[in-house]
């Protein structure tokens, strides 16, 4: 048996009675199991819960009860998105025993529409990293070449979608964590406008940058799932209180010849691999519409700015993992020592490195020089992007400066690793929607991603344009 490829096809096959939810789920779990020894995409596979849910859905259909918009669609969830009763570890030893008492809003909305959660995917610890090597549960490998990384931090979600085990997975994107692994694995990664998907139940890394995103084989599948989980949530004061355009799906037909695209030269210059640049330029040449090269020198400050703001916020967000109420505790008769042992033994090196950076840049005497300056720089970069998007509809660039690198290749040099985010962080600064779609392969057969950034709140048009471009690029 083979499952239809597209989410929309799976859902309609189930609704039409061509296939049962049980069959879909069993097939999916089989496929996951087959790939796991090779790629390690999951921290928890929720086989029993998924089969129970499938059973309920089959009953529901048999009894002609109304079926949700995502009926029987298998979905994998990044392990930093809270699932009630299902272990949620953030790939950290400190939460290795944590079973949450509630559901993230995004998960709640998936379940309300009858999606089936098949497992929790691997990631860099607390979403900090660009390779999914910083996981307490081992690295995830790229299904296209298992000697290479899947990217990160949502590496598990990208890998499981790329291995065709699930059509859709949720990830989170703070500086590129959905788009970069999607690019490395040759799939679609969509980060919506900040505030479009509730962050309630997304374990915070850098709250002002974090956004849940969708990884899928194609743009329409991302759009389908996005339309379900997006929208205002009173539990998240930063979520945007304006309705999602309805009906959101199917996407609009866009006449690309009437779209204006900007390509910042800073994203095609130094630091961008030759071959990647060539593939991107080739892809651009195939697009109709007005494509103009622009220059935004402030963009070159993006990575240093990101590596001040994100660690600052995370150093505060991760303070709650203190061994007092939940998670792992190292016992001691002394309170301070209990804190120290718990945190030093159960956070990984990358997390500890960033806690130290973040604590430093917020401490008195350094706050003005680092955090405040970075916040100002962030505003300047955001404004530059917003200004550009007044003149242009979209900004195009490579998603990543290189294709997937080898495991271990950049572990020794954090700064080198941080440069993976050179093209992606700026979207998070300004809260812009951004998507990565595959646009070609290098000589090793490794995929290259094209990043499209749009105007805030222009998610629908961004997805529609991405859908058109995807069509053009897939034609030979």
């Amino acid at each position: 048996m083979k499952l239809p490829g597209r989410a929309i096809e799976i859902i309609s096959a189930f609704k039409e009675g061509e296939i049962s939810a049980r069959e879909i789920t069993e097939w999916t779990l089989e496929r996951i199991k087959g790939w796991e020894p090779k790629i390690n995409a999951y921290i928890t596979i929720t086989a029993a819960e998924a089969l129970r849910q499938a059973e309920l859905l089959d009953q529901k259909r048999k009894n002609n009860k109304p079926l949700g918009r995502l009926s029987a669609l298998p979905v994998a969830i990044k392990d930093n998105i809270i699932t009630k009763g299902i272990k949620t570890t953030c790939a950290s030893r400190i939460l290795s025993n944590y079973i949450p008492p509630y559901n993230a809003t995004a998960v709640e909305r998936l379940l309300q529409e009858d999606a089936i959660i098949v497992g929790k995917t691997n990631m860099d610890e607390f979403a900090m990293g660009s390779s999914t090597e910083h996981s307490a549960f081992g690295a995830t490998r790229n299904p296209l070449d298992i000697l290479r990384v899947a990217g990160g931090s949502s590496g598990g979600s990208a890998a499981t979608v790329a291995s065709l085990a699930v059509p859709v997975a949720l990830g989170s994107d703070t500086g590129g964590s959905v788009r970069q692994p999607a690019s490395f694995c040759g799939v679609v990664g969509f980060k919506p406008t900040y505030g479009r998907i509730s962050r309630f139940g997304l374990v915070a890394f850098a709250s002002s940058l974090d956004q849940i995103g969708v990884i899928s084989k194609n743009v329409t599948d991302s759009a389908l799932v996005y339309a379900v989980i997006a929208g205002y949530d009173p539990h998240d004061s930063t979520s945007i209180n304006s309705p999602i355009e309805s009906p959101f799906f199917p996407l609009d037909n866009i006449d690309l010849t009437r779209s204006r695209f900007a390509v910042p030269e800073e994203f095609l210059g130094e630091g961008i691999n030759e071959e990647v640049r060539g593939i991107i330029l080739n892809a651009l040449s195939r697009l109709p519409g007005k494509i103009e090269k622009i220059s935004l020198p402030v963009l070159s400050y993006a990575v240093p700015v990101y590596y001040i703001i994100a660690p600052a916020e995370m150093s505060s967000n991760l303070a709650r993992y203190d061994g007092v109420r939940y998670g792992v505790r190292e016992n001691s008769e002394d309170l301070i020592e209990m804190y120290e042992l718990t945190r030093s033994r159960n956070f990984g090196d990358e997390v500890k490195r960033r806690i130290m950076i973040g604590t430093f840049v917020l401490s008195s005497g350094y706050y003005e020089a680092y955090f405040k300056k970075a916040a100002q720089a962030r505003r300047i970069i955001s404004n530059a992007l917003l200004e550009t998007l007044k003149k242009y509809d979209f900004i195009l660039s490579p998603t990543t400066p290189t294709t997937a690198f080898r495991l271990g290749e950049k572990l020794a040099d954090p700064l080198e690793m941080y440069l993976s985010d050179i093209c992606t962080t700026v979207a998070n600064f300004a809260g812009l929607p951004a998507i990565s779609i595959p646009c070609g392969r290098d000589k090793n057969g490794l995929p290259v991603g094209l990043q499209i950034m749009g105007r805030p709140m222009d998610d629908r048009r961004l997805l529609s344009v991405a859908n058109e471009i995807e069509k053009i690029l897939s034609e030979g």
Partner: protein
Amino acid sequence: MEYEVVIGLEVHAQLTTETKIFCGCSTNYNTPPNTNVCPICLGHPGVLPSLNQRVVDFAIMAAIALKATINRVSYFARKNYFYPDLPKGYQITQYEVPFAVDGAIEIETETGTKQIRIREIHIEEDAGKLFHPESGAGLYTFVDMNRCGVPLLEIVSYPDIRSPKEASNYLKRLRQTLRYLGICAGNMEEGNFRCDANISIKPLGSEKFGTKRELKNLNSFRFLENALSWEIEYQKNVLGSGGKILQETLTWDEKEGRAIPIRSKETSSDYRYFPEPDLPPLHIEEERIEKLKWLIPELPWERETRLIRQYGIREYDAELICSERGIADYFEKCASMFNDYRTLANWITTEIFRELDRRNLKIESFPVKPEDLVELIKRLKAGELNLSTARKAFTIMIDENKTAAQVISEYDLVQISDTRELESIVDAVLSECAKELERYKAGKTSLFDFFLGQVMRKTKGKASPHLARELLKKRLEEI
């Protein structure tokens, strides 16, 4: 050398909203430990705060009453530190731009009224509570998170206070104001109205402030005054003997009668404040302020002035009566039925205050209602009761929850003001006390009060004191 004392107070007032500041849990934390909690106030991974708008309304009311300027936009911030009663590892508070600034409270001092300026008012969340069992549990400390997320207003004064007495007057006025607004229970012992003090001294006339020290654990007005007085003496002694004041935080130990240092400047934490990314800026529309102005009751100082003017009562009584909104309401209810306002005021500030205190009651649950009190006083004024029987009737009214009329008839308390009846009692007393009468005649006139006492005793206090005195005097002159 003469020194000038400089004091500023930081007050934390818990707001009496139904639910917590960032989640839907009840603010009642006197329930069994960890029962009014949820993933949000427990700081579980992934949770976010959403601001309770009632808290904002209460803050607006406080700012109006304290004549502070409400910032049209204020921001929340995180104050980061580790402690087991702080689930998120940070407190959500306000820092760079607080909710309101530049308020003031007027207090009475020996030299007249004085303004104590308020520097800022900010909105924040309370932490939980730790319990260190003294026996049994051994190494463990218990944490109760019920109080986590109870809304607080932090009200910070300028260093305008010059004596312990001024400090407690300021604190009393502030507490009274918040209670009038109905936004804070104001019970210091229970911790819903807490105070820290910053204090320094400087040579009289000097421009430069001395090194300030912070006093904590000032759980009552008395503790506050005691602690400040102790600290002033301490600082004077240190400076007087050529020493240097160390910047320290101290906790007041009332039992020992001294302040104990808990941390120095060197060991104080760096709170690493930064803007709270989970909460948008707090915008306050003019319209909202205008709406809430209607909910501001007459404030204590306004009411004091009005009561003095309207009822002609003494300033001192007005102050006592207005100490609580409920008591002032009680007084005015009485005053609407009876126009001897001074007598009313006198009864309330003596008899009622005494009984409230003795029985640990609130005026709202006091069994003698205004109409009952008025009836009692009317009967006193009409001569049906004398002061002592009226007092007696009053306590019985409270004990048995009865009206004045019921008590007077049941206990036969009507005053004897019948001349003939009293005359015969006076005669009886004088004949029973022949020995004393002899001594009186021999010139020991101070025995008059003894005879009067005997008359009162014989009538169980019901004799009209005035008439009894007159009749006794007449009889003794006759003899």
